[in-house]
């Protein structure tokens, strides 16, 4: 059986794209997305084990309860992205890392779903290259901390 995939390879791949001066918008958007997923997956696996192996129904329920994320029975439970971001604060009491991962998540949502350039001007960026570079810089700084997150 082969070893698990190392999500930091997504980060390395994103770095290769951003370092390429001829990278077009599609490539830069993809780099942003891969950079987010790299940090997100590292954080998730640090907290809950590879592929959330240790994320039991009890732990999920506890996090949802602590943040009252599921306020109505009919409301569907929130996805794992928000869960991981809340779990960082829940487990470490650290606002900064939680907000930083959340910023990467917004960048990924912009890159994957926002086709207009308004999302760039909102954050003072002139181009997707600038956005990709900022995202890579943030990912570079928080990836080691995501690796060190204590598990549940």
């Amino acid at each position, binding site marked *: 059986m082969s070893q698990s995939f190392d999500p930091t390879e997504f980060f390395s791949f994103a770095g290769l794209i951003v370092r390429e001066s001829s990278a077009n918008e599609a490539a830069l958007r993809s780099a942003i997305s891969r950079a987010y997923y790299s940090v997100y997956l590292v954080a998730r696996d640090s907290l809950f084990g590879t592929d959330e192996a240790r994320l039991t129904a009890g732990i999920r329920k506890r996090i949802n309860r602590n*943040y009252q994320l599921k306020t109505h029975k009919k409301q569907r439970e929130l996805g794992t*992205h*928000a869960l991981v971001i809340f779990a960082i604060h829940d487990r470490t009491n650290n606002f*900064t890392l939680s907000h*930083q991962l959340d910023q990467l998540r917004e960048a990924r949502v912009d890159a994957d779903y926002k086709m207009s350039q308004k999302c760039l001007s909102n954050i*003072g960026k002139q181009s997707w290259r600038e956005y990709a570079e*900022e995202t890579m*810089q*943030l990912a570079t700084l928080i990836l080691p901390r995501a690796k060190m997150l204590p598990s549940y």
Partner: protein
Amino acid sequence: MTLYTETPVAGELVLEPRHRSISQFWRWREKGGEALETADPSIRFLNFAEQAAQEQNAVITYGTSFTTLPRGEKKRVAVVIPPLEDINMHHPALTSKVRYLLRNFWAIIVSKALQTYFPIGKTSIAVFSDTSEDRLQVVLRVLTEASASQAVAFWESLESDIHEWVSRLNDRDRLIFLRDISLRIHWQ
């Protein structure tokens, strides 16, 4: 050191550093910025040195250099406080409670920026919606001319101030802040 300032959005703010080390730091600067080892021995060195060094690094990192001044002379630094833009925009996520928390959160960030000479260019409010997850979040966006490492250092320096503020909130407000409000810092 207490700074009084006013903005069109938040009204009068009193920006008051909580740590004694800040005033010690100013005393140190007023003495001409000598090396820490030769600072006033009455200052508790270990605690002060550690925190002052952090402040010194912050100031240097943020591009404002120390100036040697004659004893007793205080340097005046003009600091621009950007208004909190879009705080009055209409959106269901921006309840009066969320606006109240945002104004206080913003004041904490601006206060820290003043203390550390961190250059804030713009502060604004936005609503973030992750299309893949059924949730809205209000974000306080800070745009800065600082570099990535400076911005992240500033971001991390906010942690203790945010903790102190959040610890004083009631349970309901704390939950609203944790769940519905997030900070974004964007740099050059």
